[in-house]
């Protein structure tokens, strides 16, 4: 089920928003205007991907530079080994809605 999160205008292009659910979800607004949602916590160790560096459809973790594909959650560069969970996003009337995945999250050790 899709839930309203925030107005798209609250996330400038090239930026991310951390949605404080459990576990938190990062919502990215790319330079091309696309919107993606993935689990916020890196699968390597405890770092927030919303704090990372967004380039195209890829985010680089701010701690050890693992890169994840926002479309698939796939790891594009180590040290992370497990993909991040992705969530379905829709934008209706300027509001970002996220349908939280029912797959198990790949949280890092100790989180």
């Amino acid at each position, binding site marked *: 089920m899709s839930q309203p999160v925030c107005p798209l205008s609250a996330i400038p292009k090239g930026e991310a928003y951390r949605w404080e659910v459990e576990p938190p979800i990062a919502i990215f607004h790319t330079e091309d205007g696309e919107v993606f949602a993935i689990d916020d916590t890196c699968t390597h*160790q405890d*770092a*927030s991907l*919303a*704090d*990372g*560096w967004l380039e195209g459809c890829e985010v680089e973790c*701010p*701690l*050890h*530079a693992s890169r994840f594909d926002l479309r698939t959650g796939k790891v594009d560069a*180590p*040290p992370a*080994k497990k993909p991040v969970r992705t969530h379905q996003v829709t934008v209706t009337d300027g509001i970002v809605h996220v349908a939280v995945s029912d797959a198990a999250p790949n949280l890092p*050790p*100790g989180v």
Partner: protein
Amino acid sequence: MIRSIAVVGASLAGLSAARALRNQAYDGTIIAIGAEPHVPYDRPPLSKAFLAGTCTEDDLALGDPDESLEVDWRLGTAAVRLNPGSRSVTLADGSEVHADAVILATGARARQLPGTEGLNGVHTLRTLDDAVALRADLAAAERLVVVGAGFIGAEVASSARSLGLDVTVIEALPTPLAGPLGAELGAVCAGLHADHGVHLRTGVGVAAVTGGSRVEAVELTDGTRLPADVVVVGIGASANVEWLIGSGLDLANGVVTDAAGATRVPSVVAIGDCAAAYSPYAGGVVRSEHWTHALEQPAAAVATLLGERREHTAAPYFWSDQYGVRIQFAGHRTGTDSVRIVEGDPDQRSFLAVYERAGRPVAVLGMNQPKLFTRWRRQLSAPDPAPASAA
């Protein structure tokens, strides 16, 4: 044409080199020689989550079971000699590995405090075996003394504190971390100890570590006697390069290389903690003992080895996690750079500081500011060669 490559040292830099070789379409033989019996594992958690008991040995694995690097791992045997003439490496068991090219990735080892060898309860921390032994010793201890308030010493203090120990940290310098961070911000980082009930004593040396078969106390140069159940010595690391003496390589606190990883000997490159590489940021040769360097620099050295010379130009970067606070640093500072807090407040343990030289940012330090830090880190450029007097 290179058809066989020996990688000496099977840790982060060695594994990253093997990955880079395969990424760069090298399909010949790779033989990885490692002194430790373990497959490559991650060291940073050894002083952090692993010591605090929140991650396991399995979590430390660097390799990915899904990747097929086709590496012939020769683990548990150290290399004892490099013979550039015959292009071979001699191992401790007497065997020889022949290869067209050699990648040196033997890292570093913890420095010992002279006179403490063989005294039970005195530890250094570099390897998984060190961490397992320290963890077991801490479990039965009440009082820990850490010698050295560098990053590893501080992290051990933090992890031990989280386990409920009474911890004292001794530092010979007046301000911890003044070398990498400068006195002002070194003092801010050192303030974390007091915030969390850890005693820090600066500007004082260790006169003796006393005990019978097991450590009982640390005696300081000012006459103080600190009773201790466990002592951790964190006074830096030395490059593992003694085995290369006589090989024709230029050895000066590490294997000297240019910015592309090339050594003085053809078809031999050096990477990671064992390499003293030319850095445009430092304007000289430095041994960069940071994880990200060992992760990323091998790709450049491998390109160089395969005939496509590539310099590693990323700004140096490291992080440290202590007392739940994340410290991140990038760039290279010298004593004459000015420091400016651009966000937050050091007293709140959340701030971003920029080091500037001639009006240009040359380094950045963040405490609990990963997002801003990442943005500033990207803006650092290699400074113009520093005038000799400013270095």
